[in-house]
């Protein structure tokens, strides 16, 4: 029995709030306390992301070498050169191809895998783990494994009579394939989590209406996970423009520049050609592309009134 039960109902009233001043009252405001929790991370981000980003933007308007503090302002000179630079244009085209590939292949594979997973009950956890493993393995390990597998003398390349990493027409797709192998399992897990949140009564209603698995997927599952789908699409575009590790480890941008992306072009300009200002301009273009995509996503989210 608690003390409150001993008190007559007429005598019950809310206990007065302890007097801790206006500041405490403000701190109890969820919005302010939220900001307070965010503050350390925000400061950290300011120092390690925003400040260097600001420098990168500034340097993109200079002839900075990348190693010296000396930098002369040259206006839009670097950006004007980018348009005429065949390596930049080639890298941009490859980035667009890369993005299209990752917007289609792993997304379809991820959706299919997640939907299949959601339809079974046994070994679900095991399969999720198996899909996820390549994603958590370091890219250098994944790349080394696939380089051995694709080896034209002792591996799959020998068996199939091809040299996928040595053929300029195949190299980009091969690197994408290897990267996708590590990536699509992650999408399976995320899509699967989103599918778990779909209202089961919708499936029951669809079943009653005679809808099969395929129809249910297109009419119930896909519309219900729309926000997740759009978010992952957005992230795929951003990540695609940041892709670097698999290309650098597997082909270093070759053969004959056939796997060069904007990131490898920027890396070469910055650290080999010592054109830090120019490399910064490439980086800013990459950031701008991502910025446009994020803005587009935010607009769609607002129009569609997505909560997540």
């Amino acid at each position, binding site marked *: 029995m608690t003390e409150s039960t001993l008190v007559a109902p007429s005598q019950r009233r809310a206990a007065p709030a302890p007097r801790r001043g206006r500041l405490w009252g403000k701190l109890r405001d969820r919005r302010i306390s939220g900001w307070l929790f965010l503050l350390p991370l925000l400061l950290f981000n300011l120092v390690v992301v925003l*400040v*260097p980003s600001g*420098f990168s933007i500034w340097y993109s308007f200079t002839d900075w070498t*990348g*190693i010296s*503090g000396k930098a002369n302002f040259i206006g839009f000179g670097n950006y004007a050169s980018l348009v005429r630079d065949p390596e930049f244009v080639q890298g941009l085209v490859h980035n667009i191809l890369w993005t299209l590939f990752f917007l289609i292949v792993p997304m379809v594979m991820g959706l299919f895998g997640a939907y299949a997973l959601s339809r079974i009950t046994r070994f679900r956890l095991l399969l999720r783990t198996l899909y996820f493993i390549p994603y958590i393995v370091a890219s250098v390990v994944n790349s080394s494994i696939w380089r051995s597998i694709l*080896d034209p003398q002792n591996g799959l390349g020998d068996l199939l009579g091809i040299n996928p990493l040595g053929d300029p027409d195949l190299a980009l797709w091969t690197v994408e394939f290897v990267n996708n192998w590590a990536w699509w399992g992650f999408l399976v897990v995320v899509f699967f989590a989103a599918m778990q949140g779909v209202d089961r009564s919708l499936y029951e209603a669809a079943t009653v209406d005679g809808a099969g698995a395929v129809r249910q997927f297109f009419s119930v599952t896909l519309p219900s996970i729309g926000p997740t789908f759009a978010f992952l699409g957005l992230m795929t575009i951003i990540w695609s423009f940041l892709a670097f590790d698999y290309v650098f480890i597997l082909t270093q941008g070759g*053969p004959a520049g056939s796997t060069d992306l904007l990131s490898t072009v920027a890396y070469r300009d910055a650290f*080999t*050609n010592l054109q830090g200002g120019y490399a910064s301009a490439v980086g800013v273009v990459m950031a701008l592309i991502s910025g446009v995509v994020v803005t587009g996503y935010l607009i769609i989210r607002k129009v569609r009134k997505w909560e997540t």
Partner: protein
Amino acid sequence: MAGITRRRFLGAGGALGLTAALAACGSTAPGGADDVLTIWNNLDNAQQNDYFRTHFAEAYRGRYPVRFTAKSGGTIDRLIQTALAAGSGPSIIVTPGPSSFVSAYYSAGYLADLGPYEREYGWADVFAPWALAASRVGGKLVTLPTSYESMVLYTNPATVDRIGRPVPSTREEFEDFCTEAKGKGYVPVAAGNADYKGANEWFVGVALNHGAGPEAVYSALTGETKWTDPVFVEAIDRLASYFKKGWFGGDVGMYFTNSFPAIYQQLASGKAAAMISGTWEFANLTPYFGAAAGNDATWQWSTVPSLGEGVPKVVWDLAVGQSAGVNTNFRDTDAAAGYLNFLTTDRKTIVEGVERMNFEPAPIRLGAGDFSQRADPRIVDLYSRLSAAKSVGYTTWTFFPQRTETYLINYFENVITGRLSAREYCEGIASRFDTERAEGRVPTAPKPGGEL
């Protein structure tokens, strides 16, 4: 340690920005502490690292103890660049050779002028004149060559016997050798760039020096001849035709995917007839031949064949494999220069390093008499002949300016895949070279006879 100036702050911020933008992380631990001399180096293996630490760092008895940190070959330059921009970095700055980074580092104020120490230590009498000349920027000595090398033709004598052709020394012999080897199912010249794209310039350098000839290359380096001259176009075109015939690496595609261990294995197992590479391979070949590999295979080296009309039969491609200078961020330049002198001129330590670890020596005057009985006669032979070389060629990583060198490396792949003609490739070289020459970034080259 010097305080942070606005210039350094901006440089550091920019470097941080670049690093963040490129997602290229690396340690930039301060290396310029006042009470210790620091050096970062990239050696071939752990054994070499240990040896260097013991004999080239800890054994030094100078004003400060020397601390050596091993870095990987793929990242050391980036780490040093980033550290320097942040106002830090090791006391001794190493670069892949005078072509790469030296001019830029000096322009940025990171390399101390070694002129006063040149007189103090008498380096002009110790080093090969060409190597010292190539180490100057705008007439000032800013680095010392810590290792030198040349390009050679490696063969496995047993395989050569099976092919039934002599080790080639002329273009005709080389083409016969490759045709015969290919016909018999061998890879004529083991080659590949899967591990290191820079391997492309080894072959471009061979085409220029042994195909066009050192006279022509020298003329172009001094600005008298254009790189678009037919002699260069023909030399590059001929080399590209060798690649397209599958003489280098098996075929063009294989060249892009062959790793170095695979190449060494091909030579040792008799699958490949020859290999064209640098003298740095002495250290790399050892584990694949003889007792260390559990076989009875051996390797031999000879000079790269002459591949052009009127080109001397023997041309020694000169190369500084590594340069080292003193970081201006280290307060005691005198002490650092003293260590640099030990690192590059202590004959006993250097010769022992060559004999025990296959290190490449600094380009000091070495003769057969400098080596002991335990030295590999192939190595003694090489350095004796190289020291006395009269007909010299010019490696791209020693005598070509940096952006031209990068172009040479990257676009050569376009030539052998048929995406670029030899003429277009040479035009690309010429346009970059002209710009860098106008900026004074071309290292000083000796005359083809070896004299300055």
